[in-house]
């Protein structure tokens, strides 16, 4: 075995990584499953292959897609944000309240209020998590109840009615652009933007390092607390934006808005290939996971299967995808290790 020979193994700059290959495979697999479900549903009920159904799926998936993007950033750092449903609710309610009390309300300000409220909630959680080092599961669970509690108090018996919401604002919820609902375009753009930055921004690379090995990340000079804090602020802001979109879609809101969203969001991430203990997964995968869950939900309705099967199917999907992942990644790592020792000369 000669040292020089092995060292000068040059390689093309185009590289594949195990994690990357897996997430790419995962994204493609989800797209394939979405298409299969679409095909089966269409065969059973030909009316499904209609633009309205597709638009309906997009509209249903929009909020979860948006929330899954923020949640992915948090989960990648080995944390979790369970407060997103409550944050979405309080944002939707406060924006509705703003419209109710201002005859000349501005849509831009409405968006700013929603995002601001969300960012505030996210910042509070992020601050507590990074300062006290209490697990984010606990902190965000507490936040889930606290925020919902506040919403219950201020929203007691109040139902914000569509008449209070300007029509121009409601149009975001039902108008389309090139056949795509506006309410889906916004989350899709957010997902693409964050997806790009996760691949190419220094700070985002550091998020993965933190989730994969917090100790090593800290030693390498990664500002762990600041990055984790930022992830929570982004997640909160997107939940706040989700509240604005919620209001535009339903035009009515009460204190229960967004209840139970958080687990569906986490489920979307997991199905989309985001490792629950951090370190890997993509925003695009999580967004696709959200869309997959929604199309299953809708196709069950269309083919007349009891919607109660929906939850069971979602659960089964989580188990199947995660087990499959584990299998694939073990194999890939093993293959690399074998190749590695081959390269070492035996």
């Amino acid at each position, binding site marked *: 075995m000669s040292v020089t020979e092995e060292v000068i193994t040059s390689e093309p700059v185009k590289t594949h*990584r195990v*994690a990357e290959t897996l997430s790419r495979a995962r994204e493609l697999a989800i797209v394939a499953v979405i298409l299969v479900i679409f095909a089966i549903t269409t065969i059973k009920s030909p009316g499904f292959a209609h633009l309205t159904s597709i638009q309906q799926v997009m509209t249903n998936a929009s909020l979860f897609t948006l929330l899954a993007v923020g949640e992915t950033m948090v989960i990648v750092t080995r944390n979790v944000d369970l407060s997103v449903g409550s944050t979405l609710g309080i944002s939707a309610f406060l924006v509705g309240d703003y419209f109710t009390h201002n005859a000349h309300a501005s849509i831009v300000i409405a968006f700013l209020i929603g995002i601001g409220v969300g960012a505030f909630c996210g910042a509070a959680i992020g601050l507590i998590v990074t300062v006290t080092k209490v697990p984010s599961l606990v902190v965000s669970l507490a936040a889930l109840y606290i925020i919902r509690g506040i919403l219950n108090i201020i929203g007691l018996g109040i139902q914000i009615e569509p008449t209070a919401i300007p029509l121009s604002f409601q149009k975001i919820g039902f108008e389309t652009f090139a056949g795509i609902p506006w309410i889906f375009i916004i989350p899709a753009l957010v997902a693409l933007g964050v997806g790009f*930055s996760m691949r190419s921004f220094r700070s985002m690379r550091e998020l*993965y390092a933190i989730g994969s090995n917090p100790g090593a990340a800290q030693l390498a*000079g990664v500002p762990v607390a600041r990055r984790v804090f930022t992830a929570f602020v982004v997640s909160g802001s997107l939940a706040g934006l989700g509240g604005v979109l919620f209001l535009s879609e339903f035009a009515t809101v009460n204190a229960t808005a967004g209840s139970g969203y958080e687990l569906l969001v986490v489920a979307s991430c997991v199905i989309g290939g985001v490792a629950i203990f951090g370190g890997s997964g993509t925003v695009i995968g999580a967004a696709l996971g959200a869309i997959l869950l929604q199309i299953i939900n809708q196709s069950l309705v269309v083919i007349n299967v009891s919607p109660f099967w929906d939850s069971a199917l979602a659960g089964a999907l989580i188990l199947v995808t995660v087990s499959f992942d584990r299998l694939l990644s073990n194999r890939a790592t093993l293959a690399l290790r074998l190749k590695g*020792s081959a390269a070492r000369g035996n």
Partner: protein
Amino acid sequence: MRKQSRAIFEQLGVDIDPNRKAKGLSVADQQMVEIAKALSKDARVVVMDEPTAALSPEEVRRLFTVVGNLRQRGVAILFISHRLEEVYEICQRVTIMRDGSFVRTDLIGDIKIDEIVRSMVGRDLSTLFPKTVIQAGAEVLRVERLTREGTFYDISFSVNAGEIVALSGLVGSGRTEIARAIFGIDRYDAGSVTVNGKKLKGSSPLRAMHAGIGFVPEDRRQQGLVMDFGIDHNVALASLGRLSHGLLLFRSSEHALAADWALKLRLKYGKLSDEANTLSGGNQQKVVLAKWLAGEPKLIIVDEPTRGIDVGTKSEVHRIIDDLAQSGVAVLMISSELPEILGMADRVLVMREGRLAATINRSDATQELVMMAATGQV
């Protein structure tokens, strides 16, 4: 059950309270508990994988006594170790493996130590400690009266450019803790750390890095590497600020940096994008070294730089450290291996129970002197 465990501990000749939680025990005691667990199941064969890696010489003694007792009771022991002296001390037969395959088996009396090394490496090893004697330059690190309550007290020393200073002492004497304090991971209560004439303010690894310090931690898996990052991402991790253009980080620049260092450190790998956990221990250590060297530190702290890596790579790591010192980097090396300390260090600082017990120059340093200072017999 408690009675039973007490009986087993007695047989082993160790003094551990069965009621204590395993969590707070020293590594050595935890190992004793592991061995006791094996005995309680009437094990006939006990496999020990690098049992001495984290032990002080004293604790190694105790372990070997226990191993001797086990042998007398007819238990077969498979002892896996990188430390050849230990193999000669307690083994009867030795089997040598290289890169995952069998090389040879011999009775210990039939094989000399250099023969073992040759078989392990597959070639002749010129020297395990390639130390070049050079003239030390200007002072790089000055530590003054550094104190962290309950851990170490009143530590003062300095390291000059081109010098290798070893921090020796038993496990738990505060060596690693001092390094962590210098690098800003842990706070300290009193004293100061000065690098190149500038006092380090506050404690954060980022500040220490900016001041020109690199830190190769003792635990590769937990602190050194992001195991599921590729080699290139690991090498680049501590240099991201320098590598990125504004917010953007280009993979090609990470790749180029890693390729450069892989070549310099003779890293053996398949592709630079391969995950760190696919590499052997020695090559993983080279990746950690590359990560820090890429930042061109003025001072590098290496904590147990050759723990758990094979003899061949070990001598390469020593060569890398020596090259660094030659190029004017100040090196602070923590090690539990006395031959490594005596072979590489210009000066040896010996710690005992959180205090600096002795400073010994290279020419005066012997195993006995260092051990006596470390155990308080001077």
